[in-house]
Each structure stands twice: as C-alpha cells, then as structure tokens.
C-alpha cells in the first residue's frame, strides 16, 4: 500500500514488495510476514510497532538479510537483495546495514573499542583507521574515553547499547536496523537512545526501529503498525490498532 502512496521515489532507500515469510512451528505453518509493502525513505526514523509475535522482528531480519523471504522483493539501491548470492548478502550486511539489538549483543570478551572495530575488520580497514574511527564513534555516542577498554560486563545497559550503536555505525551504513533498542534498559536511558537514533536519522541514516513501545513513535517520522504479520499505516489505522496492541 505504501508503494502506491509514495510521493518522492528518489528518497527511497529500501522498499519491500509483497514480502512473505512463513515458519514451521510444531508442525504448523505460521505466517510471520504477510504481503508487506513498505518504502523506507532516506534520513528518516521509522518505527514498526507491534506486540510480541506480530512479525515485526521477522520483518527486520528480512530487511537485514538475516532471513530470506518465501516470496516478495526487498529492493535496496535498485537491487532485489532477495536474489543476491550469500556472498553479496554478506557484503550488504557489512556495508549497507547496521544492527542494534535489544540485548546489545556485544562480544563479551572484547572491549568496547574492539567491539566497534570488529565490523571494520571485515571490510579490511587498516588498524590505525579502525581505531581512529572507533574512537570517533564511541565519542559520538557519548562513551567516556576511560570506558573504551572496558569489556561489556563492566558497562551499564545504556553504555552497552550505545557501544552497540557505535558498532552499527562502524562501516557507515545507510540503514540502521534496531530491534527493541530500549527493551532492556530503563525508560530514561531508553529515551536517550531513541534521541541518539533520531539524531542519526537527521544526519542522513535511515533508522528502522522495531518496538512494542508506542512511546518511541513520538520521535518517529513514520510509524507502521504490524499485526499478525500484516502492516496497517499509522495515519489511517492508529486508533483501531492501538486498541488491539
């Protein structure tokens, strides 16, 4: 539906067309994503809101190529990433998208700076540049210098999530995919994280946040509500969906 309403096609970074994904669970086939058509525009913060099991995380995984859809298209820079080889998909994850997870998912035995430099290793950036850029990014997400060499266990939840955001930005991707980024931190820190993500969208990133926390939508440029794997646009269906969430 969104594809039809798009007024400014030049700004679209990522779009889905008739996207479907099913899973087998206990012998039953579950339709996690049903016929989803969304255009994600450049420099915007987009929220995808839905309750647990609604298919929002599956959608995010499909956008980040962590899963392959059963049918449909995901268009990124005129390329249907669904058709790309595994090797090209790895390239897509390396350079074009950055992930932020609910449980931070930092490598526990690496320091904050090592976690941030990690994605840069895969694009063969040299050591000096990796460290220089990682430091810049950590400063950007407000991590104090004395925390750079701390392992995740020595950092607070908020600090860990900021390190995770810095890691997502490591290879300067166009898209940031955040799965419940405030789900495991207190509301005050959560607000700061959302502000940080909003700031990134203002700086030119397309930030797609999946959440069940409707309050995040305050800062979102667009919000999509997802229910039973289907998307209903915010503007048209907000009240109706809210009652079901």
């Amino acid at each position: 539906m969104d594809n039809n309403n798009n007024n400014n096609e030049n700004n679209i970074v990522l779009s889905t067309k008739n996207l479907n994904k099913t899973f087998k669970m206990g012998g039953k086939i579950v339709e996690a994503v049903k016929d989803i058509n969304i255009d994600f525009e450049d420099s915007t913060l987009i929220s995808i809101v839905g309750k647990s099991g609604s298919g929002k995380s599956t959608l995010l995984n499909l956008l980040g190529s962590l899963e392959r859809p059963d049918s449909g298209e995901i268009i990124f820079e005129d390329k249907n990433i669904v058709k790309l080889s595994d090797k090209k998909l790895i390239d897509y994850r390396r350079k074009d998208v950055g992930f932020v997870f609910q449980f931070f998912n930092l490598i526990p035995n690496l320091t904050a700076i090592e976690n941030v430099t990690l994605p840069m290793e895969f694009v063969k950036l040299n050591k000096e540049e990796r460290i220089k850029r990682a430091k810049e990014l950590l400063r950007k997400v407000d991590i104090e210098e004395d925390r750079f060499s701390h392992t995740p266990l020595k950092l607070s939840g908020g600090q860990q999530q900021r390190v995770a955001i810095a890691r997502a930005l490591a290879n300067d991707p166009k898209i940031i995919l955040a799965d419940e980024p405030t789900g495991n931190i207190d509301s005050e820190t959560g607000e700061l994280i959302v502000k940080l993500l909003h700031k990134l969208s203002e700086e030119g990133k397309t930030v797609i946040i999946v959440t069940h926390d409707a309050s995040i939508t305050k800062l979102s440029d667009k919000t999509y509500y997802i229910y039973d794997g289907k998307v209903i646009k915010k503007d048209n269906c907000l009240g109706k969906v809210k009652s079901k969430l």
Partner: protein
Amino acid sequence: MPTISRGIKNIFRNKIRNIAVILVLALCLSLALMMINMDFSLDNITKSVKRKIGTRFDVTTNYEYIEELAKKEGERIYDNPELFLIDESLADEISKIDSIERVSKIMHGEFKSEKLKSFEAEMRQKQGGDYVVAVEEKVIGEEGEEIDYSKMFYVMGIEDADMIKQFQEGDINLVEGNLFKRTDIEQNVALIEKNFAERNRLKLDSEFIINNEKIKVCGIYEFKKIEQPEEFGGYWGEETIYIPFKTAQRLLNRRGREGVNVDMKGKADMLTVKVDSLDNVQKTINYINNTLSDGRIKASQEWTKYAQILYSTKSIKKISTISMISAFAAGVLIILSIMFINTRQRAKDIGILKAIGASNINISSQFLIESISLCVLALILSSIIILAVNKPLSDFIIGQTLGRYGYGEMWFPEGIETEKEKGAGYELETAEMSPGFVELINLKIIFSPQILIYAILITFLLAAIGSLIPAYYISKLRPAEVLRFG
C-alpha cells in the same frame, strides 16, 4: 591478525577447562609422537637387519638330518667328525650356478696353548678362580680330561675376509696391517684381535704357535665393544684368530673314531655363498637343498638367527602402532568435544558476527586459530612430557615385549641378582645375541627432525579436525534464531 588475536583470546574465556584440555591433549600428543618415533627406530632396526641378511647365505651341516640319523644308527655317529664336514667339491658345484657371485670356504676349530694368555685367563687372574664365561658345566674332552677353556683359543680359517659376517657388519675393524687375500690361502699368517695382541705382546710380524707351526701376525683388528657389567670384565669382545683357509685345513686336524686324526684336506666346515640379487637368494637356497644336497648339508640364510629379532620388532611395532592410533583418536575426540562445547556455548557470538558482516570463513578461521592454539600449547607441553617419559616408556614396552617372549630368561646368566625382575633382563648379557637384538635392547629414541615435522603435522591435523564441527555449525546457524533472546 585480529582473527588470530581473537582466536587466542578465546582460550582464556574458560581457563580451567582449557588447561585441562591442553593437559589431556598433551598426553595424547606425547604418546602418539613417542610411538611414531619408536616406529621409526624399529623400522631402522628392521632395515639394518634385512640389509645385514642381504644376499649372503650359508651352507652348513644339516643337524636335523644328523639327529634323524642318530636315532636310526645310534649316538656313535657323533664320533665321526667327517659327518659334519662339507666336501670342497660342493663349493665348486655351487659356483657353477648362474646366480652365484662368490663361494667362500670356512673352517673353524680350537687349539690349546700354554704360552698364550686368553681373556678368560686374564679375568681369572684378576678375579680369582671364580670367573666363568657363560659356561656353567665342566667340559670333558674326548679322553675324559676336563677341558680348561682358559687355555683354548678359537681359530677360523677363511678365504675372503670380506665374506665374513663380522667384517661385513662392521663388528670388526682392521687397525693395523692387512686382511689376507685368496693368494695367501696357504700361508702361515693371522689376523688377531687388539686386546689379544696387547695381552700377549704381539705386534705386526710377531709370531706365535698354533699346533706346532709358527704363525705370523699380518693384521690386527678391533672388535666392536659391547658393554658388560664389571663382574664380566666390563666389556665383551670376540678374540677369534683368523687364518687362511688352507692353513686352517692343515692345522686344525680333528680326532675321529679311536683317536684317529681326520684329514681335513678337501673339507670345509661351512660355505658362505653370495648371490647376485635378493630375488635369487631363496631360489638358489632351494636349488642347493633340493638338487645338490643329499640331505646332510643344508643351505639357509641367517634369517632364522634374525627371525626372533624381527618377530620382536614386529610385536613392539604392533604395540606402538596401536598406542599411536589410540592416542591420536583420543586426541581427536578431545579436540572435537571441546570445540563442540565451545561452538554451542558461543552460538550467540556466531550470530552476532554473522549479523555484522562476518563470513563463514571469517568465523571458522577464528575457531581454527583457537583450535590451533590449544593444540600448539599441548604440543609444547608434550615436548616436556616426552623428554621426561620417552626413555622409561620405550624401555618398558621393549622390556615387556622381550620379556613376554622369554628373552629375559634366555639371556640372563644365573646367579646374578640384577634386572631380571624388571621383566626382560636385557641390559646385561648380550654375548649370545644377534646384532639386531643388541641394537634393539640399546634402542635410543632420539627425536629427529622428521619427528618434528610429524609433530607439527599431527598438531595441525588435530586442530583442523577440531575446527570441523565449528565450521559445520557456523554454516548451518541462522543468526536470527540465536539473536532474538538475551
């Protein structure tokens, strides 16, 4: 480089478990490497024994035939020395066989001398009358008199020194003078042993008497020393006097029935035959036994003498091969198990790495480095273990194996309280042993560069096997599944 450092760092994620793994792996590696090395050493012994057996074989009296004859005709036949001699004409017939390179005649015997001093006489002088070399019983001569072995000297009449086993095998080295040739065949010359020469103040061109004839020293040789305990003189050495074959025929007459001397002319005790190739050895032996022999003489390779050592070597090799395979298999199981546990525990890390753009190869190489690091640390530790355990372990295996086949009992002199209880008792009496046996009991497991290559290969093979499970798991893992939950 970051992959290497991350792989190494991962070892420290579970220190105690990994230390235990390294220890057990080190034990497996040590055992596997020690067994490989033992295999090499045993291979060398086998090769050396086979090389020594070579293309040479002997034609001697067939004692089985004589025994059968004695059963039929009575023990009297043993009084006839001619029954034990070989006609020289047989040597000529054997020489006509196409595959024959050379036939060399040998005659041996003893002579008594009151003037010469034997090794045994010297030992008796040093240690009193108690010294006895391996002979426990009194030896009674043909006329009922007790033979005093301290006055007896062993002589061997030979045609070609280079056809004599001891010369071929390097047990004898000429230190002065010359070996005699076929042209010296009737001359009164002798090759004598260095200690015998010193004891009797004999030098080159000195003369001594054998059965009333003057013999001139034409060469002095040194016999390979075999260490012995002090009570046995500290070493054991052969002091055979080598003289030309025809001279031996003349000097070493034997007494036959009713004390009549047997004319040794045209006779030999033994023939040594050399054929042109290893392939022709058995064929020629069969031809001589089946066509030229009437049953009284028998051609045979020294194989029988070496068979025991080759059999023992094979038994030890079997043990070492089984131990090596078991140790390697245990190592494989350990590294596979630990890497399986590590991979399962780090499923989330793998998911994260995949999500941030790591390829399967990127992640697998990290696990490979981890596996290599564990194996290399185990290898370093195993070198220390090998240094400490190698000698006692190889001694134990060799000792147990030789002991099992009765060699300990076989070679051990009675009345000596020594290593007998240890199983083999192989450290002492070596006088009766074949050269291969001496090499086997003195087997020194020295680690060669070849073993270093094997050690590195095994370590990396273990590491590679250890990283198979992670590689498979990584290729199958769907990051979305493991990243969903904390």
